Structure formats: C-alpha cells, structure tokens
C-alpha cells in the first residue's frame, strides 16, 4: 500500500465545514461531493487535484461535524493519503471505515511543502520525498485499524469476519 503524489498543504484545525460546506450535503454521491471539496477555502482544489495527491496538514484535521461526506469527498477527489500531526476522533474513524488512508506525522507537517512530490507507505509508515532526502516514519497504526484498512474498509471487514 504505497502512494505517491504532490502535496497540498493545510494548517491546523481543518474542520469538516471547510472540507465540505454543509450546503453541499444535500447529496451523498461521492463524485458530486468531490466537486465541492474545500470549495470555500481553496476553490482551486477540486479542479486541480490529481489522482494520488497527498494532503499534509497540522493538528486536529477533520474536527467538527461527523459528516462522512468529508473523507468521502477527499477520497473521491483523488487524494491518496492524508498526513497530519493529528486527526479529530470522528474523522479518524470515518477515514479508516471508508478506506481513506491516513497517517500521523509531525515531521511531515514540518518539512514538506506545497507541491512537493512525496511517497507514503501505509504498512511501514515511511513517508519520503523524491530521492528520499527527507524520510520519516509515521506513528504506527493500531493493529485493529490496520486490519480494517487491509480488508478495504469496515463493511468488508465485517463481512469477512462475521463479527461485531
């Protein structure tokens, strides 16, 4: 599970109203949601994000509402992985549940800049720039969460495991 893409850099406390404003929540189709991802704060995002691109952010990413439309919009926009110093609780669960890979790393937030080409390995946690001049390891994912990711999201995990 290795991803590579250009960095879109964000600050601290990126809330779910910024990720997808509530006025766009009258639909639940992920491609429709993706068109309005970051509509108010970065109107250039939806039109320019390329498949594989990586979001790098500060603390408490995804705080606020429980709307799963937020990680869905990010994923459908083409973002391969979100790396942040920390994630808000509900967003963290939602991201794993829908199969949007996320990693926690302070160094990545410090060192990577907008537009930089970065790779991230979900299993080893390695995050590196081209040529690996900058190379960090994300906080390990709890085993249980890793199983959900490996299954491809909570629905498949539950279907396979026949429990919960």
């Amino acid at each position: 599970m290795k991803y590579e893409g250009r960095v879109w850099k964000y600050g601290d406390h990126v809330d779910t109203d910024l990720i997808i404003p509530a006025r766009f929540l009258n639909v639940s189709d992920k491609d429709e949601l993706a068109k309005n991802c970051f509509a108010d704060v970065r109107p250039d995002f939806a039109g320019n994000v390329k498949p594989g691109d990586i979001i790098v952010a500060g603390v408490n990413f995804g705080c606020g509402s429980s709307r799963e439309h937020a990680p869905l919009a990010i994923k459908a926009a083409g973002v391969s992985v979100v790396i942040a110093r920390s994630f808000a609780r509900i967003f963290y669960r939602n991201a794993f549940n829908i199969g949007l890979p996320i990693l926690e790393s302070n160094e990545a937030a410090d060192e990577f800049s907008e537009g930089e080409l970065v790779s991230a390995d979900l299993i080893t946690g390695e995050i590196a720039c081209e040529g690996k001049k900058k190379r960090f390891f994300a906080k390990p994912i709890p085993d249980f969460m890793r199983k959900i990711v490996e299954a491809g999201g909570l629905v498949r995990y539950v279907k396979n495991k026949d429990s919960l």
Partner: protein
Amino acid sequence: MTTPMTITEKILASHAERDAVSPGELIEVNVDLALANDITAPLAIRVFEELEVEKVFDREKIALILDHFVPNKDIASAEQARIMTEFARRHDIKHYFDLGDSGIEHVILPEKGLVVPGDLVIGADSHTCTYGALGAFSAGVGSTDVGVILATGRTWLKVPSTIKLEYEGRLRQWVGGKDLILYTIGLLGVEGAAYKTLEFSGEVAGKLTMDQRFTMANMAVEAGAKNGIFEPDDMARAYVNERAERQGTYFYSDSDAVFEKVVRINVDDIEPQVALPHSPDNVCPVSRVDHFRLDQVVIGSCTNGRIEDLRVSGEILKGRKVARGVRLIVIPGSPDIYKKAIQEGIIETLLEAGAVIGPPTCGPCLGGHMGILAEGEKAISTTNRNFIGRMGHPKSEVYLSSPAIASASAVLGRIGSPVEL
C-alpha cells in the same frame, strides 16, 4: 478486588459484558440506541444495504430523525429524506420522526424518554454526546459505523481516559451552562479533550437544570471529546421518570476512580462568555467584545433550543424591540417546546419584539437554510460552531453565546449583556 472505575468506564464495561475496562483498551459493545439524521442516514442506509443483511438488528433501538434540512430545502435534500422515509417504512423503524412530531434530534430523543441513564448511544452526528446529561454514554461517529450498527447492534470503541471538571463557587447573574461550557472549551482548547471523556461535576454542576446540562454535554465535542457526562442525580431521575418507559441503570464514578486529570474551576468570577470567530475555543467575557453592528441573531439548535432557553429569551425581550436592521430568528427545538412556548406566551412576546419564529430544524446552525449570512455579515448565535462559513458566506462571522446574551444583543444591535438594557 474490584477495579475502581469512572461512570464512563462502568457503562462501557457493562455493554462489553466485562467486569472492568480501562483507558486505551479496544472493546466491542452492544448499542442501546443508534441514531442518524437526514444528512447521515442515507449513507448509513447504503452501508447497511452493502452488508446484505435482511433485517435491522432491532427496530426499537434505532432512531431516524429528519432535522437538518427540514422542511426539505430543495429537491436534492427531499430525495435524501425520501431514502430515509422508505427505509424506515420497509424496516418498520419504531422511532422514526418526520415533520409534525420531529424536532432537533438531540432535543427530542431525551424529551421522548428514549435515552435513560446507563444507556450506550451511538449516533451519526457529532452532537450525540448531548445525552451524557442523563448519565448515559453517548458518542458521535460517521455513517459507516452506524450502518454497521443497524445490521449488528454492535460497534467498537476505544475506552477513553477521563478529564474531571469540578465547578465550584457561585454563578453570577446571566451565567449558566452555555457560559460554563464555552469557558471550559476556552480553557482546554478545541483539541484539549481529544479522544477523551469530559466528566462534569462539582457543586455547581449539580445545581444546573437539565436543560443547562444538555447544553454542556452537547458541546463536549467542541473540545474534541468523545463524550461528556454528568452523574445522574435526583433531577435526572425525575426528568427520566416523567418521560421514559425504561428505568435505566444509575452508574457513578468510584471515589478512587482514576482520572487523567482533575480541573477545578471556580465560577465566582466567570462572566457571560462569547466565542469569537472562527473557533469555539476563541472565548472572551462579553464585556470585552468590541462594539460593532450585528446583522443577525439566532436562538435555537441542539445546544440551546429548549424551553428554558426560550424562557430566558422571552424574559429579556418582553416589552422590548429588536434593534432596527437586526434579524432575530428563534427556532424551538421540538414541537412540544414550540407548544409550551405558545402556552406560556413566549412566542407572542418574541413576535411583538420583532422576532421571526422558525419550525424545529437545525437550519441556520450549519448554514443549511432559514437564515444564511451574506458576505461580511455578522451574527451572534446560541449554536455550537463558528467555523469559517458555518452559517453562510465564508466571509461572514459567527459569535457564539447563551440565549441571554443573544437576546440582549438583538435589542442592543451589538453584542452585549442584559445588564446593559
């Protein structure tokens, strides 16, 4: 030897069929009530259908509430609502609430006696933490989690550590639950309680009315918390007995329970609080807020749309007029509250003052409808979030306060306190 536990740990242990749990453990729990609204339910229903299960786990333990965009604001939201309605009919969901008997989810579920002390409630809405006011464990999750619960009745949780908040002293005039929770969020920061429990306690917490407790537990998530909780006392017992068929289980933190930290808050000097844009932790006392012209005042929401909130507003607005140029929007949280407010003459008072009264809905709180702000407009609101663009244009501003401050501000035309009237 029994392990000392907090109220939250005890509720989680009982639902995990375990003698004890401790912070950091991942557990699987049985859910007493799962809820979703018109934004989150359609996605949860899609997940339920992907699971290819024939029946929901228990048609009496699911609540589906149409509240965010009702009355349906456009064709797209009407289509989302229809997905919910059809699902509720197909599965004969007992607690399905549509216009007429519906209101704001976190207002009506306690009001209808559907949550009792000791319950474990999981909702696809971040303000599900409201039910902690009743001594229940309740936490918000996303739609996929609720979709799985619809099928299985179970979910996984990480046992949170607890920050105990002890409120002592004497509340000043016009200071209540909303001011205490804003003050607390200011103290902890928006991620200060991330993944943790906030346990509200102390002499002052015990004197707060149920409506004020709902307000406080409701905003626990604004400090990043998983749940907020009060130990259920006689007042909670009376509230529940009046409404619920179920008895509930009353849990209390052991005297030697382990808290991550205990924060003592003396309320003597706490003034009414206002959260400035664009974060609920950006709080300051009302007397220190700059004077500028307000465009809109909103009184309502799952935070402050209950009868006491309307009573305070009626008391302040009686015989007064909303300042010229200010739009005052008041939204009772449920049909029962609306009716009570009519019977008590509050609605007439508010109308005389120049307010517009909306039907029970989340509406403007999340910038859905019924009170959207234009570019550059400023509003004070009794709601729970003031993020960029929360109530409308990304260049509008939302200030958060209690109903008392919001009502006084509507008359003053700027942010101020009832003592200035």
